[in-house]
């Protein structure tokens, strides 16, 4: 390697390392702060010392305290219920639609597919006010239905699964038809098992989207026993005199499940992102 080459490589590496620092510092600060006393957090910042990014003790005092001070456990329960039901029902509804779109030539199929694409480009947030009007008219506000029903259809899932099913050879299904299996039976015992990787990809991004949702759950419910975690933690922040260490602990709890799932399944996740961007 020439000297110029080495120089370029090191400049690139320094740039990437600095960027990685920029990305990681807030997260490390949050995590170590969640294990400290409020006074310690301020002492480490003024003046700034390396101690700000290292947990001083491994005391989980803050974590115990926040559940006593605020109904975060209720919020957490609601988030789990809403996310699991939305994603679970979603996997079924979305894969059914994907199968229908991939394999059946009924009139209007193209129109439905175009609608899916339009909905995919249309983030949920744009709909919040009209959705509120609708749910108000249907008397769904302040119910679990308002939190779950609007999120079940996940256009991205339909799109990914449809692409995947179209690549499955039709001969499998034809021989099952000859043996007298119904279409639903084919979907259930042939298509679904073959779709497993795509189902994981689709389900994962649906799960993260639902768990992280903020705007709609903020509007959809006011009753405190229906509030989900992402909204509840903001109410916690707006509560009288927020304690930083407690806010950090509450943040870590909200991040933790998603981070674990992401690290375990990131392969599938990245694949899904790549497919949406590159395929037509």
């Amino acid at each position, binding site marked *: 390697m020439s000297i110029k080459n080495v120089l370029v490589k090191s400049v690139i590496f320094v740039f990437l390392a600095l960027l990685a620092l920029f990305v990681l510092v807030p997260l490390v600060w949050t995590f170590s702060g969640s294990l400290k006393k409020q006074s310690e957090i301020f002492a480490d910042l003024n003046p700034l010392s390396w101690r700000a990014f290292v947990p001083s003790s491994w005391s989980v005092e803050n974590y115990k305290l926040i559940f006593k001070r605020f109904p975060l456990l209720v919020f957490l329960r609601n988030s789990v219920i809403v996310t699991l039901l939305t994603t679970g029902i979603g996997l079924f509804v979305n894969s059914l639609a994907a199968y229908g779109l991939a394999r059946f030539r009924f009139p209007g199929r193209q129109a439905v597919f175009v*609608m899916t694409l339009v909905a995919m480009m249309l983030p949920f947030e744009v709909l919040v006010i009209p959705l*509120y009007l609708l749910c108000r008219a249907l008397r769904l506000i302040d119910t679990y239905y308002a939190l779950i029903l609007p999120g079940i*259809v996940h256009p991205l899932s339909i799109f990914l699964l449809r692409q995947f099913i179209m690549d499955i050879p039709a001969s499998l299904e034809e021989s099952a038809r000859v043996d007298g299996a119904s279409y639903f039976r084919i979907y259930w015992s042939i298509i679904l098992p073959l779709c497993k990787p795509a189902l994981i990809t689709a389900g994962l991004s649906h799960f993260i989207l639902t768990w992280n949702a903020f705007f709609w759950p903020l509007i959809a419910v006011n009753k405190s026993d229906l509030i989900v975690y992402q909204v509840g933690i903001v109410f916690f922040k707006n509560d009288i005199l927020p304690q930083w260490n407690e806010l950090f602990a509450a943040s870590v709890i909200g991040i933790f499940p998603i981070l674990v799932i992401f690290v375990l399944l990131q392969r599938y996740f990245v694949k899904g992102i790549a497919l949406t961007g590159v395929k037509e």
Partner: protein
Amino acid sequence: MKRLTRAELFWGFAFITPALVLLLIFRFIPILASVVVSFADYSVTRGFQGFIGFLNYQFLFSDKDVQNSIITTLIFVLILTSLQLALALFCAILLKRSSRINIVFRLIFFSPYVISLSIASIIWWLIYADMGLANGILGVFGIRRQPFLTSEKWALWALIIMLLWKGFGYWMVVYIAGLNNIPETLYEAAQLDGAGLLKQFMYVTWPLLKRVTLFTVVSDTTINFLIFAPVYIMTMGGPRGRTMLLAYYAYRTAFVYGDLGYASAVSVLLFLIIGLITALEFRLLRSQYEY
């Protein structure tokens, strides 16, 4: 083509019906509803008071707050989207090859994406606080404390930096997928013709990446036009309207002032702006190359 049997017709419809019904009720009808309501006098407290024609839209065009909000949103989206995508593409080019160290960098850059916007906003609210981390870091360089989120000059930039942190890793992953779709032989040919790195980018990477870029630009602009949580959590639109993005303005009109009719008009305006910009982007970036 096979002839369509009655059973196929029935099952085809049966399979898509649940998704179609939910899609119509919770995505498409609300859009129509908001257009209808934008012509009405409709408030949270008094309920529906009848249609008033274009009155909401007339207010819209004489409302100084809306004008400020539109300009703020356009500046915000333009800066944020270009920074996010430029940084994403740059990192994608640097990290294209899947060596071990590159994969670690990619994972790090991507990680903020999985954190919810509400929690990210809380963390950055603490970073930007008077006694927070950002001022701690400035202190190391001997710079005076800055009032980031309450400064008319810096508040919008504070939001932009935070969202750059949150989002560029996602678009990087999209770009890496796009880059890996470009046949390696094209680069070899370019090198044989004596093209340097810059020329390779201009004549191979950029033209062949147009389709991916169209996707990233359109999706990222749309997402950024609808940013809400950070404003709600960190600035409430202040100081003096400097971070009053349209999505937050619409929210405030509907749920703080309770004017659903006017808020719907603002939403429709937001729709139209997004639609217009998307159309513009399609025109500018339509690919002339196929491979």
